[in-house]
Each structure stands twice: as C-alpha cells, then as structure tokens.
C-alpha cells in the first residue's frame, strides 16, 4: 500500500517518488495544496476502491496519516 500511495502522490503532486518520505506533508510539498488534495483523495478512492468520509479527508494531513486512515478502512491492506 505504501508504495502505491507514493506513486499516486508523485503523480498528483508532481514530485519525484524518491522525494516522498514519511514526513511528507503540505508543509514540505509545494504542490500539495487544497485543490490537489481533493485530486489526491479521488485517486486514492479509485485505486483502493474506497469512499473516504469528510473527516477522513481532513485527517490525511501528511503521508503517515494517509497510511493510518487507509489502514483504518482496510486493515488487511496494511
């Protein structure tokens, strides 16, 4: 799951996959703005066949939290 999330982030935020770390967040990824965040959410929903709640969308404040939210939804993917 982790690698897949990184691939999506790389694509959406237009950043090299090697530059994505567990500390990546809107604070250090210039392109991670509110508009692209929604694109990111859509891409995650499509990739993992899930539907994120508004609360979960706002909780995904950095890479580690994205993984935590996804694991909460589908623990088996962890």
């Amino acid at each position, binding site marked *: 799951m982790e690698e897949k999330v990184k691939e999506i982030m790389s694509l959406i935020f237009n950043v090299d996959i090697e530059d994505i770390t567990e500390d990546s*967040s809107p*604070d250090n990824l210039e392109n991670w703005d509110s508009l692209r965040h929604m694109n990111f959410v859509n891409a995650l929903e499509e990739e993992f066949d899930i539907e994120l709640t508004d609360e979960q969308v706002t*909780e995904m*404040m*950095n890479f*580690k*939290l994205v993984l*935590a*939210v996804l694991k*909460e939804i589908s623990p088996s993917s962890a």
Partner: protein
Amino acid sequence: MNRIESYQVGDTAHIEHLITADDIDKFVELTGDDNRLHVDADYAKKTSFKGVVAHGMLGASFISTIIGKHIPGDGALWVSQNLQFLLPIRIGDKLTIAAEVIHVQKRQKLLTLSIKIINQHKQLVQTGESQVKVLDLEESKIKMEQELQKKVVLVTGGATGIGAAVSALLANEGYHVLINYRNNKMGAENLKQEILAQGGSAKIFQADVTHRESVEKMVQATIREFGAVTALVNNATSKIIPQEFDTLEWDDIETHLRVQIQGAFNCITCVIPELIKHQGSVVNVSTIYTSSTPPAKLSGYIMAKAAIEALTKSLAVEYGPQGVRFNTVSPGMTETALIADIPEKVRLLTAAQTPLKRLAQPENIAHAIAFLLSDQAQHITGENLKICGGSVMI
C-alpha cells in the same frame, strides 16, 4: 577533626620582608603617626638613633601576616599579644618574622606562639608571644552552606516516562534523587544504576502515593539518606483508559482523584516542613488538555488534572510567604508508555496539528520541570507552563 588537632609544639613558620621608605609612608598614611623620628631625616640624625627609624608596629604588623596566613592561617583569631621592642628597625632592614608553636590548648582551641623578628645581621629586634584561637567556625559555616545548597528531589512515578526523564536530568544537574515507584521495580533499579554509572546520586523507594503511611516512610527515608528534601515532583499518574462517561463507575473517577490529588496531597503535606526549611519548590504534572479541548472519554483523568492545577495555585498563595514555590507543567501528548492505548492515528493527528509537528519527548518535559525547580525560576510561582509544541497558545 578539629583544626587545633593538627598543631603541635615545635611547629614553625616564617616570612621575610624588606623595610622600605614606601612602607613607612604607607604606615604614616594608614595610622597618621608622622612622628619626625620616622619621617624627618634631619631631625632623626639629631636623636640618639642617628637616623630614621621605622615604626615599631610596622615591624610587628607582620606578626599579623604570619598568623593570618601561616600559623594557623584561615580561621585564625588573634586574641592576645605581648611584645618587646629590642632594637630599632631601619629602612633597608631585611626582617625575618618567625613563629613557633610553644603551647597547644586543645580544649580552648588556643595556640601560643613564640614570635621572633630578626634582622639581616641576625639581631633579634622584636620578640613576643601571641595567643591565637583556631576557629572551626568557618569550616562549619562552609559545611552548613553546602548543606543548604544540597539539592534533594523526590520524584513520584519516577521510574518511567516523564518521571524517569526528570529523575535522570535532575541527577545530572547534581540533585540527589529519590525515585519513587509503585510496581516497576526493575525500571527503577535500572534507572538508578544508570544514574550511578554517570556519577549521580539516586535511591529507589517503593510506595503507593495514595497510602499516607507509605509516603511518610518514603519521605523519612529520603531525609535519612540525603539529609533533606528540597524539591518534589508530583508526577505519579493513573493509567489513561478512554471510557465513555455513561459506563463510568464512581470508582473509575476516584482512581484518578486518589492517585493524582490524594497522592499529591500526601506527598506535599509530608515534605512541606522540609520545603519551608530549605526554601524548596514543587512541580505538579498536569496535561495540556485542561487548557484546550480535551479528547473524548477521559473525563476522570482530565478532572483530576484540573484539580491539581487548582491545588498548585492555592498552595502557591499559601506557601509563597514562606518561600516555597508551587508550579505546574502541562505537557502535550508525550511519547511515553502512558499513551500506548491511544490509537496511532490520533497520535499522528495530534503531531500534525501541532505547530512543531511532533509529539513531546519526555526530556522536553523534564527540562521544563528542572527549570521551574531551579533558582532561575525563583520568582515564578503558581504558574502553569505548557510544553505542547505550540498546540495551545493562551
């Protein structure tokens, strides 16, 4: 040992000094004795001395030097002196001032010194006997001051998490540390060994802070071991178990109140005479969630923490006039075993919502506590210091 014990008959010391015109000028300036025999060469020539003579007491003044700096040196109290002026002292004379112990009165702590002042021609120019008291007072005073400077802290819940970081840091800062634990003997013992290995001073003591008798014994043991209690850190806390309010029994609430409020009450009341005596300080450990929106389902824990903050302020007012300071630290979520039951997502969210983007480490809290206990904080009392990475700013 009394310092008088280190002296015996026959002990000697001597100093030398060359008498100059400048010495005479300074003596005149100091005493106002400008008798012409000492300052007027023409006049002095007409006297039986046939020249300028130094003041007799100028030569004798070096007896003060030999007593004050050599026998017995520091702690000397010159109580009596007799003197015979045998020959005049002149400019250019090189004096040897010699003292020899001729009598030791141990009970009275008195030395009798034979004083001989001899010139460069080996002529005895002055002689006399000095009586000097050898004081232990200064040493006692130094020892007493050292005792007053001694720092002894009792850290409740001192074996793990924030308590362990506080114990280790304060030991490193020179405190004698009493590490209180309830169940974690191995953790306490390991921490003690770590402190000792680094040259620190620590003891461990098992006590449930809710048991008055145990706390009394712990405080007595601390005083017995280290001679004082100068600081207290009320860090012992109950386990954080999220629980919905409608499932709570009063016992659940009371557990928090017992550990945090009754525990702090027991510790403070037992150490307060020591703290008054040593102008000590107390730091109570609370939580940032009394100052901000608390997490759900922690009502008992939050209630007890709010109460300890109120206790801190009340005691700061009550004991301020006696020189005892009370402060609180309010940590944000801190990386300790206490938050083990808090879901990872909540921890990550907390960190993400904190301006510094991380949870606190126990050492961050320990440094704040050490500051509040220190002299740097001597005008801070009744304060609640938030250590939360900026998550709450009031």
